[in-house]
C-alpha cells in the first residue's frame, strides 16, 4: 500500500476499472426501473456509492476519479433533495402536495410512472452522494498525517 503510486496495486486498479462500469450501470438500472422491478432510488444510490468507494480504495483518495467526484458531492446531494421536494411541491398543480402530477404512459414501461422515476433518481443522487461523502469523511480523513490512503506523508 505504501508506494509512490496513489491507491492499491495495478492488478486491483485494472480489475476495478472494468467492474466499476458494471457497478455504476447496475446502480442506475436499479434506480431507473425501481417502479417496475425490485429496487429503487435508495438501493441504486447505495450501489453507486459502493462504486465510488471502490474507486477511492483502488485509485486513492486524492487523485483518483472519486476525488473529482467528491468536489461535486455537496451540490449533487442538494440537487437530489431539491428535486424530490420540487416534484412533491409541483403536485399542488394537480391537487395536493406529493400528488403524482406527471402524465402516465403504458403500464410495464419506463414511462408508466414518470413521477416515480424522477423521484427515484432524486433519491439516488441524495443517497449516493450523501453516503459517499460520509465514507470519505469517516474513513479517509487524514487524522494522522501520512495516512494509509495515499502513503505520501505530510500534506
Amino acid at each position: 500500500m505504501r508506494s509512490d503510486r496513489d491507491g492499491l496495486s495495478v492488478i486491483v486498479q485494472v480489475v476495478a476499472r472494468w467492474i466499476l462500469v458494471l457497478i455504476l450501470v447496475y446502480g442506475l438500472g436499479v434506480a431507473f426501473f425501481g417502479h417496475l422491478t425490485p429496487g429503487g432510488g435508495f438501493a441504486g444510490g447505495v450501489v453507486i456509492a459502493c462504486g465510488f468507494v471502490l474507486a477511492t480504495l483502488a485509485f486513492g483518495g486524492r487523485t483518483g476519479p472519486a476525488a473529482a467526484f467528491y468536489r461535486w458531492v455537496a451540490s449533487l446531494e442538494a440537487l437530489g433533495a431539491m428535486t424530490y421536494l420540487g416534484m412533491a411541491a409541483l403536485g399542488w398543480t394537480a391537487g395536493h402536495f406529493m400528488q403524482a402530477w406527471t402524465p402516465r404512459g403504458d403500464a410495464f414501461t419506463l414511462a408508466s410512472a414518470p413521477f416515480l422515476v424522477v423521484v427515484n433518481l432524486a433519491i439516488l443522487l441524495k443517497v449516493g452522494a450523501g453516503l459517499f461523502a460520509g465514507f470519505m469523511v469517516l474513513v479517509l480523513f487524514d487524522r494522522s498525517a501520512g495516512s494509509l490512503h495515499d502513503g505520501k506523508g505530510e500534506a
Partner: protein
Amino acid sequence: MDAILIGLAAFLVLGSVAALEMTHLLSAVITIGVVGMGLSILFLLLGAPDIAITQVVVEVIVVTVMIRAATRTGHEEVGRPRSVRTVLAGLGAALILVGVALAAFAALPAFGAPRRSPSDWYLAEALRETGAANVVTSIVLDFRGYDTLGEATVILVAIAGTLVIARHLAGDRMVDGDPPGASAATSLTSSGEEAPRA
C-alpha cells in the same frame, strides 16, 4: 420452509452474539457482515426482494467502511472478560425480553395473514392508480410519499451532521471542495483517538 427460516434466524442470533464476543476487531466486523448477508437471504426467502437488495448493498458499504475504520484505529483487540454478574444480568434481560415478545406476538394476527387492511386495496389498485408495476415502489413513493420524504430528510440531516462534526474534529476546512485531508492536515489530538503512525 419454516425450518429454513428458523434455522437462518438462529444462525443470525448466533452470529450476532459471536460478533459481540470476538475480541479481534476485524473478525468481529466480518462476522457482522456475515450476519447482514444472512439477513438479506432471510428477506429474500420471505418474498421481499426490494428489502433484500437494499440490505445487501447497505451491508456491503457498511462493512467496507467498518473494515477500513477498524484497520485504521490501531487497536486489533478490543473488549475485556465480563464478570459472572454481568453475564447473568444480560441473560435475565434477554429472557424477560423474549417472554414479553412472545406474549405480544400471541396477540398479533397469524404470520403472513394480516387482517383486512388497506394493503388489500394497495395490492389491487397500485398499478392502476400509480402506473408502477412494483407495488413496493408505488407504496413507498406514492401512497406513503410523506414517509419517504421524512426518511430522506433524516438521511440528509444525519449526513450533514456527520460531515460537520467530522470535518471540525479533523480540522478540515473544505474551502474549495478538496477531498478530506487534502488541505492542511491537523492531527486529532484532543479526543485522544489519534492513530499511531503506521
